[in-house]
């Protein structure tokens, strides 16, 4: 049974005097090869969800299944973590090794791959994030954005089937942000890696084929970007604004234009309208 399945998952944290509900009754299925966006404001439970997926946290209730394997069983954790890689939000605290190249080799090494295979993967991952020339640098001398790219490469090198990214663009300038998102799209299309991109920024999730919106620990909305972003009222009610493209489409439709196709960028939309 391939794919990720969450069955009625809840997560509560014990605090000093009470229980803090971080997630409640989450149900969803993610198939292999999908590109999923998870959207939510601060404290909505996004990072908790990510940690549940590879068994760093165990659900208080419900089951998390990765390719049919329950994250609750310790024997299968290694296999689960090999299948599902996570890029964490703070790059400074997830880089382990004193040299970039060795950092990226860390995961593959732990999988027990042959040196030549590890070497190949390191080069491949560095190329994907465009950091070849930084191969022999020390991570602490890199900029925040470069660190985030190294963190991404070091998970990519494990060639997981599912790649979970928790706010991977928080330290990137607009240009590198677009670059990384473009890389993700390529990895999804060419390497058929499943991408689960977590963000509080709707613009980041434009490439996703399906969106899951979290609010206060529950699934608030679900659907294609067009469906989710099209419903400006419902999205606005929890303090999220759809990306500019969808605002534009909405306004055009209010003015009486019919926009049927899916567009990914504003220039595409403009071109289509000009052709009419």
């Amino acid at each position: 049974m391939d794919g990720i399945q969450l069955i009625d998952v809840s997560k509560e944290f014990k605090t000093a005097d009470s229980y803090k509900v971080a997630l409640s009754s989450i149900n969803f299925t993610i198939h292999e090869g999908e590109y999923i966006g998870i959207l939510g404001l601060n404290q909505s439970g996004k990072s908790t969800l990510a940690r549940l997926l590879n068994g760093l946290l165990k659900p208080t209730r419900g089951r998390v299944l990765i390719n049919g394997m329950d994250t609750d069983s310790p024997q299968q954790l290694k296999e689960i973590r090999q299948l599902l890689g996570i890029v964490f939000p703070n790059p400074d605290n997830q880089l382990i090794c004193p040299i970039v190249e060795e950092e990226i080799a860390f995961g593959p090494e732990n999988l027990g791959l042959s040196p030549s295979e590890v070497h190949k993967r390191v080069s491949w991952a560095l190329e994907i994030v465009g950091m070849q020339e930084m191969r022999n640098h020390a991570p602490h001398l890199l900029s925040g954005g470069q660190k985030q790219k190294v963190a991404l490469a070091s998970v990519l090198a494990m060639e997981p089937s599912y790649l979970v990214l928790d706010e991977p663009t928080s330290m990137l300038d607009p240009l590198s942000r677009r670059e990384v998102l473009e890389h993700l799209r390529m990895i999804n299309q060419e390497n058929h890696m499943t991408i689960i991109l977590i963000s509080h920024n709707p613009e980041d999730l434009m490439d996703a084929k399906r969106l899951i919106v979290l609010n206060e620990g529950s699934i608030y909305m679900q659907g294609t970007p067009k469906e989710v972003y099209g419903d400006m009222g419902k999205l606005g009610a929890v303090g999220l604004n759809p990306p500019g493209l969808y605002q534009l489409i909405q306004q055009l439709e209010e003015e009486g234009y019919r926009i049927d196709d899916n567009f990914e960028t504003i220039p595409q939309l403009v071109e289509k309208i000009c052709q009419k």
Partner: protein
Amino acid sequence: MNDIKLGQYVHGNSLIHSLDPRTKIICCTFIVIGILSSHNFWYLLAFLGLILVAIKYSGTPLSSIWRSMRGIRYLLLITFLFQAVLTQGEAVFQVGALSVTREGVVIGLINLLRLVILFLGSILLLMTTTPMKLSAGLEFLLLPLNKIKIPVQYFTTIISIAFRFIPTLVEESLSIKDAQRSRGARFDSPKILSNLKSYLAILIPLLASSMLRAEDLAEAMDSRCYGGNPNQYRMRTLKYDRVDIYLIIFMAIVLLAGLLI
């Protein structure tokens, strides 16, 4: 933050860089044994020459080594002075109640040379070997200790994490210091107690953030399947060349020569 820090790896392509880390560790051990067991001034001087040639050969900038030498100049000076004054023997000249002896000067010079050689040898090792290679080499050489239930691979992981985080922690402590200073804390007060308080105000946030960091780091390592098994991959990249063997034989001969004269 771009200046070369003492003993930090500097990338290069020299023969010394490409030597197997085990060779370098073994040679350093030979150096330690050699210089501690010999009392011959000329032998030590020759040894110093050897190390200087190796440093020149490694392409490490001599100026940065010279600068780092200045860091231990007082240690060297004190060692020399104490030996010169406190050794019994034929007085060369007198300063008040203290007399500098001929034997003292010789022993002082010998110990001075020993310290310099030790210092240069370890700097050369650290500057031409990546921490990861170093820990791979150490792990390989110490792995037999696993048999008596000493988990060597954990120690080498700890060493490599320390190498990764020391600069980060230094940076962080500087920025906490700036933050405290901008809120009026003083680090140069004549009162020791208030200075102490200011430094405590750095230490505590630093400790707190290190705890959080450690937690995150453990999660990241777990997520990437770290299992604490000996790092076979890292050690498999260790490879002995003919040069390595020649060098070890050469150093063994140098060591033997020192023991004999």
